[in-house]
């Protein structure tokens, strides 16, 4: 079979799964008064289409910011505007000012779902295909297997096509950036990443590794010679892309400031709902939110985040190669997720993207983490009525990634990069770490499955109404913390040798 036909079958299957999920319900379907992210996106179309640019981010008589006001950077707003033009052509009622609020109909749902698919097909999926074909090692069969698993990662599919968001756009731009950097086109890569940042501010989770990688590379080339020109070129590219994205808001400083205020809502607190990060998990033991003032919470999280990203960033600065870059991306986004301020449960997708890049290198750990990340959003999926797609896509992903990437066979200590642990744990008797890892994997999968069943089937005791969501988020937190530590250790241990890579091929 030709590679092209296998690739196209993978992509088509990915599209079929995405569309199958999109037949289900979305967030806030038929739930007044606030509805959900679906209504937020529709409302942004309404606002951007009917109001002048100057009013988009301001509270005016026509723009009630308390009802899903725009709080993403300008590129999201432009995307909404484009969608709104198409919506207007199909049915003007969909974007009519004020009157269209909370508009829901099967045709409109179809339209919204189609916009997600189109964005995905244009931005995210091609990037994934190119990444897997050009930047992963191994035979073409291996590459296709990686592609298949990458495309079927359930978290992103369920959030974009079930819950309803456009993560594929920002993640796709980020992936284009990674792809370009991997192929050595640094300026193009930084432009793509600027677009990602301007689509969703959460892409800042990935910003530090991009910065360190490019800076480290320039320094290595020599800051007094060619490296300097490289740096200038990249800086200019970034500035120009930012300026282009912010063009309508640059005429008036108050405009730009208002956008920034909307995009970084400091006033919303350390965390919301149940999210599987440090603060929410710690909350079970210590109620930080009530002990510390809001400012000290902010500083505390800032300091912790910086401390957590520091090791991987320094390592990347001193050794800017693609392998370190991938690991640093995963470490940085995980650090941000675990320690930063105002984290949503959906932000784990930002960590999932760089972890997906490691699918071919560390299959077992990656599959394990990706499964945990999907599991961490279980309460959200249950709220949105996405139980069946959650079960189906998770089971499918777990089964196929383990089968196709032979995740359970490829786990000797060498392949799992466990060498460093022996040095760290020198005081313990020598044991088979790879075998332990496998058993931990089985136990954890069983625990996640058990908790999923319990969340669906059991009624929590009356004095602990949030029992299951808390258990879910704490379990997921432990997984994330474990992955974070593991990937940091991998980053600091020996890079994969040629020999072990050959063996994988």
């Amino acid at each position, binding site marked *: 079979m030709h590679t092209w036909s296998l690739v196209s079958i993978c992509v088509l*299957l990915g599209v*079929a*799964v995405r569309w199958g999920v999109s*037949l289900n319900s979305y967030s806030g379907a038929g739930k007044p008064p606030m509805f959900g992210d679906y209504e937020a996106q529709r409302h942004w179309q309404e606002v951007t289409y009917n109001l002048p640019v100057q009013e988009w981010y301001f509270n005016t008589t026509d723009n009630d910011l308390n009802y899903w006001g725009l709080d993403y950077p300008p590129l999201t707003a432009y995307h909404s505007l484009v969608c709104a033009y198409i919506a207007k052509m199909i049915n003007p009622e969909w974007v009519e000012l004020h009157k269209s609020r909370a508009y829901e109909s099967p045709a409109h749902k179809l339209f919204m779902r189609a916009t997600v698919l189109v964005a995905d097909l244009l931005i995210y999926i091609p990037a994934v295909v190119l990444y897997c074909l050009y930047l992963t090692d191994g035979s073409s069969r291996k590459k296709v297997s990686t592609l298949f698993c990458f495309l079927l990662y359930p978290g992103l599919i369920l959030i974009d096509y079930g819950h309803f968001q456009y993560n594929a756009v920002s993640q796709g731009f980020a992936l284009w950036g990674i792809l370009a950097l991997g192929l050595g086109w640094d300026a193009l890569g930084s432009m793509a990443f600027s677009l990602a940042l301007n689509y969703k501010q959460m892409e800042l989770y990935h910003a530090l590794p991009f910065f360190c990688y490019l800076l480290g590379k320039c320094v290595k080339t020599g800051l007094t010679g060619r490296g300097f020109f490289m740096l200038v070129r990249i800086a200019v590219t970034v500035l120009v892309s930012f300026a282009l994205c912010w063009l309508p808001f640059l005429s008036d400083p108050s405009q730009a400031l208002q956008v920034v205020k909307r995009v970084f809502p400091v006033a919303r607190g350390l965390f919301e709902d149940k999210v599987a990060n440090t603060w929410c998990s710690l909350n079970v033991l210590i109620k930080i939110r009530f002990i510390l003032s809001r400012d000290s919470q902010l500083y505390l999280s800032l300091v912790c985040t910086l401390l957590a990203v520091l090791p991987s960033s320094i390592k990347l600065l001193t050794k800017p190669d693609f392998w370190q870059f991938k690991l640093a991306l995963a470490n940085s986004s995980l650090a941000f997720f675990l320690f930063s301020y105002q984290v949503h449960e959906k932000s784990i997708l930002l960590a999932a993207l760089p972890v997906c890049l490691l699918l071919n290198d560390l299959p077992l750990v990656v599959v394990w983490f990706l499964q945990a990340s999907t599991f961490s959003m279980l309460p959200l999926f249950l709220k949105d009525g996405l139980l069946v797609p959650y079960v189906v896509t998770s089971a*499918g992903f777990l*089964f196929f990634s383990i089968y196709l990437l032979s995740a359970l066979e490829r786990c000797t200590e060498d392949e799992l990069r466990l060498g460093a642990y022996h040095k760290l744990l020198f005081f313990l008797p020598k044991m088979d770490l790879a075998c332990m890892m496998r058993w931990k994997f089985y136990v954890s999968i069983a625990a996640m499955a058990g908790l999923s069943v319990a969340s669906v089937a059991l009624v929590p005791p009356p004095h602990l109404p949030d029992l299951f969501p808390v258990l879910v988020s704490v379990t997921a937190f432990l997984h994330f913390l474990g992955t974070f530590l593991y990937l940091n250790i991998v980053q600091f241990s020996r890079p994969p040798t040629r020999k072990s890579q050959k063996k994988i091929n």
Partner: protein
Amino acid sequence: MAAPDTGGWFPALAVGVSLLKCLFINAYHSTDFEVHRNWLAITHSLPVSRWYYENTSAWTLDYPPLFAWFEFGLSHVARHFDRNMLLVENLNYASASTVLFQRLSVIATDVVFIFAVRECCRCVQEQKGSRDILSRPSFVLASLLLYNFGLLIVDHIHFQYNGFLFGFLLLSVAKHLQSQHLQGALLFSILLNLKHIYLYVAPAYGIYLLRSYCFTQDNRDGSVRWTSFSPLRLLALGTIVVSVCALSFGPFIVMGQLSQVLSRLFPFQRGLCHAYWAPNVWALYNVLDKILAVLGVRLKLLEEAELPRASMTGGLVQEFQHSVLPSVSPSVTLVCSLLSILPALVSLWLRPRGARGFLRCLVLCSLGSFMFGWHVHEKAVLLAVLPLSLLAVESREDAGVFLVLSTTGHYSLFPLIFTPAELPIKVVLMLMFSIYSFTALRKLHSGPVLRPLETVYLLGLFAVAFACEVVFPLSPWQRELPFLPLLATSVYCSVGVCYSFLRLYAGLLRCEDSGEKSKLQ
């Protein structure tokens, strides 16, 4: 022949397709969903004697008794999902748990199909030296059957239990390929009592079993040796068939309801063509009639007022009155169908070529009745496509026919799923299946399997699809001629189906020729 190890990849394929099916639970379902819900209710809440008399719903029970018992069994599981779906008067009841149960019941009973596919894969001749899994005939066959586009959309979106039924058919074919004829006959008679549409292929079974099982030896020139007749074998076969039928129809015969049951099973008041024309000879015939009528009026050979009022404009055509050509009655279609399969049956009798010859005859029977039958559903093309998959992985000639037939047959199923929300799914699944079958069969037979003209014809399907799904809805004709896309689809596809039928026959005759020659030499 050694059974190829199906460890590993086969379960993966089966699990994958089952999960894919689960994603379509919330998709559009046709009235067949209500049909089966109603049957669940009838079999659950009424005594057996009322099953074939109940008519609260328009969707009366019109499958043979074993299928009614199958629904009866399902209804006992359904109880635990939602009791209300089991009330006969709850027409068009489709609560979330009802949908879940019904969809899951289709997915679960597909286990029969999966098992049958595995048995079929064991009968396939493996090529020597091909170590790559993806280009092994058994892998290709399993993918072609499990991921069959038609079955996926007809069963899991449109809603029917074809997977379960085809499971019995393929299992029985596999048993014949493994020379376990009695088991094969048993499975087929169970199948006949589940759904009587399989009567179409019964002649192939009858002739094959009589010729190759009841007669144990051939003469030297390959003709039947009459003295080798084994009454014992005939008796065994007869006992099996009669006892299954007795089990199924017996209670109704005892209650004196046989005529009522039969009148439900064979409703001849329906029209020549089903609502959407199946791509068969009659579609071409109807179009020819229409063209002649228009030409006649233009050339002043016919008076417009004399023509019967064309009922084609309704879009959903039930009765079709021909204006120029003679109208077709059920008996004519029956004669045509019989004539079309007769040569295949004669060849099966005169030159039995083992179970593979039987399989070829079976495909010809189902295709012949599809081409000339009365009130044929477009779904019936699967009856030919699925068994043909078995032949396609073994011979290049059949692979070519398979590609033409499956592509046109599958495309003709497109109008079945007309809701915009499911449009991407049908397009994507169709593309997936076509890309896979083309590249895999090409690789398997190491070279192109289609002739240039066939390729051009199949590429033309893209043009038809584009015209019907994109251009037409935007054009001014949509108001005046709403039936045009259906017409174009079925006419274009019927050309391909007719061609496959002829090419399959040509292959059979060529075999015969070469057989004669080799004997002469």
